[in-house]
């Protein structure tokens, strides 16, 4: 331009054009951005608008716009789960009818049973038995070698399927220890406690235990057996071992004898699929305490 007034403002020191803005004599240099940068900004804006049309975005009073693609994270998870279930359908069918005693011969299916059983256990069983299966007072520890209702594969699967002392399943394990507070005199209970303690090698009062031995023979041996070894057929605990479901101290034993205990486990047969029951039984069996399976009956 010929008009000298219209010349670009130039900074004296750097020789770079200024924007013409001046604050207290300090001028702003103009180092222009590349124009494609501006275009890429517009492109991202257009992209963002397209995105909000295609995907759920704009919040409304009830929920948000759904987007033309009909995408939702819930739907994606549901599709994922369906895909996994479809992929596992064959293995689950095989597992549902498998003989658990010989399952470990089929390495791939056994590993599948253990890992899917672990998932089933954490979701459904850990609330009572603990995430590490160590149990709690009144909830059996599944890691040890002590089993109330038997610890081979079939016995574990049966307990999972039908539960214990529940009213929902006619095949549930059932037994009931009487509350001996209503049967025995109050003075008869402390000697019984001492005798029971003597059975499992805990420290005990010998004189009282001798008295307690008689009432044990009269009242307890029907279920717990004469030697106190218990009876897995009735879920009667072994009193001679080191494991106490409700505690082995005098207070806990007195409470158990006086009021009895009534531990309940729901049946899982209806809630879990047969494959899941088999899987979780396999998982529990390999936690450390699983008992040997009986030899198959041969004709």
């Amino acid at each position, binding site marked *: 331009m010929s*008009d000298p*007034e*219209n*010349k*670009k*403002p130039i900074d004296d020191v750097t020789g770079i*054009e200024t*924007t*013409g803005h001046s604050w207290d004599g300090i001028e702003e240099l*103009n180092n*222009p*951005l*590349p*124009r*494609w*940068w*501006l275009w890429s900004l517009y492109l991202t804006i257009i992209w963002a608008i397209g995105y909000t049309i295609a995907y759920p975005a704009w919040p409304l009073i009830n929920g948000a716009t759904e987007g033309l693609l009909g995408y939702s994270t819930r739907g994606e998870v549901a599709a994922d789960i369906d895909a996994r279930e479809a992929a596992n359908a064959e293995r689950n069918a095989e597992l549902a009818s498998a003989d658990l005693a010989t399952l*470990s011969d089929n390495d791939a299916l056994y590993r599948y049973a253990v890992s899917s059983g672990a998932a089933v256990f954490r979701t459904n069983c850990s609330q009572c038995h*603990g*995430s*590490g299966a*160590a149990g709690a007072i009144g909830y059996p*520890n599944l*890691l*040890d*070698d*002590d089993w109330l209702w038997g610890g081979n594969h079939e016995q574990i699967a049966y307990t999972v399927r039908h539960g214990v002392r529940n009213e929902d399943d006619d095949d549930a394990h059932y037994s009931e220890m009487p509350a001996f507070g209503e049967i025995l005199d109050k003075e008869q209970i402390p000697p019984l406690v001492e005798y029971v303690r003597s059975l499992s*090698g805990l420290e005990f009062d010998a004189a009282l235990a001798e008295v307690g031995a008689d009432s044990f023979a009269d009242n307890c041996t029907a279920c717990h057996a004469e030697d106190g070894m218990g009876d897995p057929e009735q879920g009667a605990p*072994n009193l001679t*071992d*080191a*494991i106490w479901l409700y505690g082995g101290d005098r207070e806990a034993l007195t409470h158990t004898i006086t009021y009895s205990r009534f531990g309940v486990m729901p049946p899982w047969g209806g809630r879990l699929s047969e494959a899941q029951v088999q899987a979780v039984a396999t998982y529990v069996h*390999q936690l*450390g305490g699983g008992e040997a399976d009986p030899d198959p009956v041969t004709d």
Partner: protein
Amino acid sequence: MAETPPPSLYAAREPIFPRRVSGFFRSLKWWIMGLTLGIYYLLPWVRWDRGPNLPDQAVLADLASRRFFFFWIEIWPHEFYFVAGLLIMAGLGLFLFTSALGRVWCGYACPQTVWTDLFLLVERKIEGDRNAQIRLLKAKWDFRKWRLRLTKWLIWLGISVATGGAWVFYFTDAPTLLRDLVTLDAAAVAYISIAIMTATTFLFGGFMREQVCIYMCPWPRIQAAMMDEGTLTVGYREWRGEPRGKHRKGARAAAAAGTATTYVETNLPEADQGTGDCIDCMACVNVCPMGIDIRDGQQMECITCALCIDACDDIMSKIGKPRGLIDYLALEDVPPPKESPERATWSPRPIWKHVLKPRTILYTTLWGLIGAGMVFALFVRSDIELTVSPVRNPTYVMQSEGSIRNIYDVRLRNKSGEDRLFHLSLSSDETLRIELEGSNDLSVLVPANETLLQRVYVTARRQDPAASSNRTDLRIWVEDVEAQTRASTATLFNGKGE
């Protein structure tokens, strides 16, 4: 007074037409381009026999089975520290080279530079050199222009597809993938990767070029902090070249005759003529792929490709002046002012003094130590390995006879190409017994090239000290019975405590 219209805050890209140049650095760059592109395109096709069950591709990042193969080296996911070590070495190497030689990475080895160079070569072969390209830009879109442009773009696109295609071969068996790609049987991710790499190569090499370096790459800004006044970098000897002036034939014979005895005297601007060595021929500017003038001094845009050195040396020898007006130089190497008596005896510091300085020595030492450590770690790696995770939920299990049991999740790795029988045992000062879940004889078969999770029980009898103490040290051993190799890991046994 009229209002000045506000200047635009955005500038369109000025097209750059680097002129062809020849010389030492140009040849060096051709060799480096051939080498790097050759490695990139051909490496996935190199075969390496690892025996059965293992891939025979020399370099393979097998993401699906989580293995990285590099010739005789196989990296498992838990050995990712090797990759981290390599990255640290790459970083330190970059520091070392930048502190000693400036932006040599940018100038010679950066993919953006190498592929742009390749695209420029194609452009020059089809459209001609700088002047022809400028004419073509201004020409109307007639048949010839369309033909040249389309040919160029097609060749660029071919290179881009090959570039994107080579990338995916690093991630799966190359011959199989190539067949699948052609028959449209390859995974979608392969096609998407190729499409993205093709698009970026085409765009960055053909059209974005120096814009990538100036506006998209963080490296030019980072490197400024790594260079110092002793760093050898591409620069202009201003004291020699200024003031610039047009070349006049025959005026500088004295200098060329070599009668001078000292460095400065040889290179001394002829003060009586009032001009320096720079004849303002613009050769350095015309060959620059970044479109800058190196005579303006160090600038962020300069990728130190050294082509201006070749261009200027060519001119200098034509006019009978010493080479090196534009050269690899250290910024501190400036002679004293003309009036100073020391100028006569001044000479630049030798190159080794610029390169050997505490920083570069430190970088080299660290680089070497890490490298030696990694090589050592690589050679002491065993074919068998174990990691032991004690199960701490619960810390211990009491068995019915009163013994105390701890549970361990032991991961057994068989890195050999065949199934191996591993035997487990333990050593401890206290009496402890080891058992395996699902195995009666302390042996377990670990499949080839796999990790097996084995549940291991360690038990202390009721009367053993370990049962009642808080913690007992123990070591779990795994032995490959056949190969007679073994490994061990120390861990703890938790008793009932006090």
